[in-house]
């Protein structure tokens, strides 16, 4: 099923939950709403579910406006962060509840619930109560309940946030595999950018109720359109340095105190002559080498595979990912080589990208 949001707005008095959201979800597409808490992603999801009535704008399912359609008539499945399993019902009753409401005959109900439960790997737990299940099992029941009525749209509200790190990883791929296999259009709300980037076909980045960007994970990562997206997407986050880009002898130089790097002309020309700009570069695009910009090691954090190192270049502070083999120590002086093909430039006042406007 295709979903379209047109100027979708939700206000409570002066509080804006979602502000003129425009986006479309293609049939069988997996879309993530990504943003910090309070950005309006759950508000938007609940409007799609029909729990909240939009203040303005339209929600269309396959071209039909559904603003006033009750949640029960929208044929959606939903998975919650809290699982929201009915505590007084056992697993079978939980999974078959949507079918019971649809007045589906008992033997068919039994069959369908069992099939879904087997698919989720919880077929042997049918007579357990939710309180007798682990978090991962509860989330599988919740998924089963969402899937059993064969919905045309699946809504996920931070479904993995309550699981431990390992389980989150395996459930992540399981949900993705399930969604692809069944081909159900899905909207997935998360504040975890790794989840959004790994699972979604397209990611809608939101902030303060506004849609910041809506594109594929790769594009968000490589061509961030705003400073917010550049800083929010990617872990560890991108470094930002204020500087000036000037043209000298046909080369573009990005300069600030203690920092002078030659930028490839395709990127440099868009930032040159604009006064102060913000240069963005990801920690993995900086390497420690024999020559380059001098810097001083300030803090070394071990991430296991890499060390995350906080360095000082003059007054500025940046993060660099380095090989632990180097054994860098606090106070050590090193030189940094910047992968200038990956640098970003932003206008400090509009916070928009100078490269991908």
């Amino acid at each position, binding site marked *: 099923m295709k979903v379209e949001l047109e100027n979708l707005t939700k206000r409570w008095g002066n509080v804006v939950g979602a502000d003129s959201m425009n986006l479309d979800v293609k049939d069988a597409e997996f879309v993530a709403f990504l943003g910090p808490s309070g950005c309006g992603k759950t508000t938007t999801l609940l409007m799609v579910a029909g*729990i909240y009535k939009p203040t303005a704008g339209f929600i269309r399912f396959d071209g039909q406006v559904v603003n006033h359609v009750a949640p*029960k008539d929208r044929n959606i499945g*939903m998975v919650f962060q809290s699982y929201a399993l009915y505590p007084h019902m056992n697993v079978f009753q939980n999974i078959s*509840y949507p079918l019971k409401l649809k007045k589906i005959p008992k033997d068919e109900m039994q069959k369908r619930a069992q099939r879904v439960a087997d698919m989720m790997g919880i077929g042997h737990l049918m007579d357990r109560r939710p309180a007798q299940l682990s978090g991962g099992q509860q989330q599988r029941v919740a998924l089963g309940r969402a899937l059993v*009525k064969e919905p045309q749209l699946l809504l996920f509200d931070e479904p993995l946030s309550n699981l431990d790190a390992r389980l989150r990883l395996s459930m992540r791929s399981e949900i993705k595999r399930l969604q692809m296999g069944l081909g159900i259009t899905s909207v997935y709300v998360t504040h975890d950018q790794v989840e959004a980037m790994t699972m979604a076909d397209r990611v809608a980045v939101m902030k303060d109720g506004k849609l910041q960007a809506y594109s594929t994970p790769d594009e968000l990562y490589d061509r961030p359109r705003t400073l917010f997206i550049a800083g929010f997407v990617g872990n560890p986050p991108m470094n930002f340095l204020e500087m000036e880009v000037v043209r000298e002898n046909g080369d573009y130089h990005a300069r600030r105190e203690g920092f002078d790097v030659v930028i490839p002309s395709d990127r440099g020309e868009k930032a040159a002559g604009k006064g102060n700009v913000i240069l963005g570069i990801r920690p993995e695009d900086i390497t420690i080498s024999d020559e380059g910009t001098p810097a001083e090691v300030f803090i070394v954090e071990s991430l296991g595979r890499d060390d995350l190192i906080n360095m000082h270049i003059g007054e500025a502070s940046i993060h660099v990912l380095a090989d632990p083999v180097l054994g860098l120590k606090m106070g050590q002086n090193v030189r940094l080589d910047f992968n200038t093909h990956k640098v970003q430039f932003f206008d400090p006042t509009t916070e928009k990208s100078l490269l991908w406007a």
Partner: protein
Amino acid sequence: MAEAVMGRKVIRGQKPPSRWAQFKATMGAWGFMGPATVLVLVFFFLPVVILFVISLTDLSSSNFSDPLTFVGLNNYVRLFRDRFFPKILGNTFFYVAVTLSCFNVGMALLLALLTTHINRRAGFFFRLIWLLPRITPSVIYILMWRRISHQPPFGLINQLLAPFGVEPQYWLFEQPWLFVILVNGFVGASFGLILFSSAIEAIPRDLITAAKVDGASTWQSIRDIVLPMIRWPLLFVTTYQTLSLLTSFEYILLLTEGGPGLYTTEVWALTAYKRALKTYFGHNQWGYGAAWGFVLVIIGIAMSIIYLRVFRFNELVQEPKIDVL
């Protein structure tokens, strides 16, 4: 193997705990339970024993200075032979059953559901209004009801209904049970109302959202999710209010004094009070009144046991769990 050997070693090496250690271990438990136990003993158990002893005597205001004469079960025989015994027993069960089902549980549940499904502030306001009868002093509250149901040409009901051509009448006199139940129900509903609405508001929002998405209408989500989840307060209020209605009589005393006429609205607790402490000629039959009171205690205990069995309270009281969310 190794573990088993080690296990045996440990057991063999342990001395049985000394008496002093055992005493110390249970001290804490006694310390915490003590005050409550003393209260129950002094204010419930002892009075019941004294009540029973008095019920075996002919103690009254005419002979209280003489030595006590025990009359065996004479007071009980007299009680069960009383011409109005069946009437009073029937009145009591009618009063408890109707007030409980229509107001203390029924109305309370209805109001709790209504006030939790409307705007939060409006819901709070209506709950507050329903608390007013409870916080009004009983004499003033009953005076209001008597004015409302007073005989013509007075009475608020008469004045309000007159324009519609309704014949003025002495409403309290014509419909004594209606007013007895309304008077008690308006007070009684607020207890369940407060408990039910807080229980309903404690149900996680996600569950209701999930039910709606699963395809439930409002009524279906109430039936399938809300009611099962407030089962415990429902049963608690039913039990608690049964017992408190069984023993309550002050509103009836103030409103109808058990009348109009002979024993029309007289309930058990009121009879016990009248026999023991209030008679027209100042003749207080403490021994006989105690017999009425003691039978009521027995009825109350029997009802509690029945409720405990029927509702299986033990299963309802679950181990408390600390919820992470």
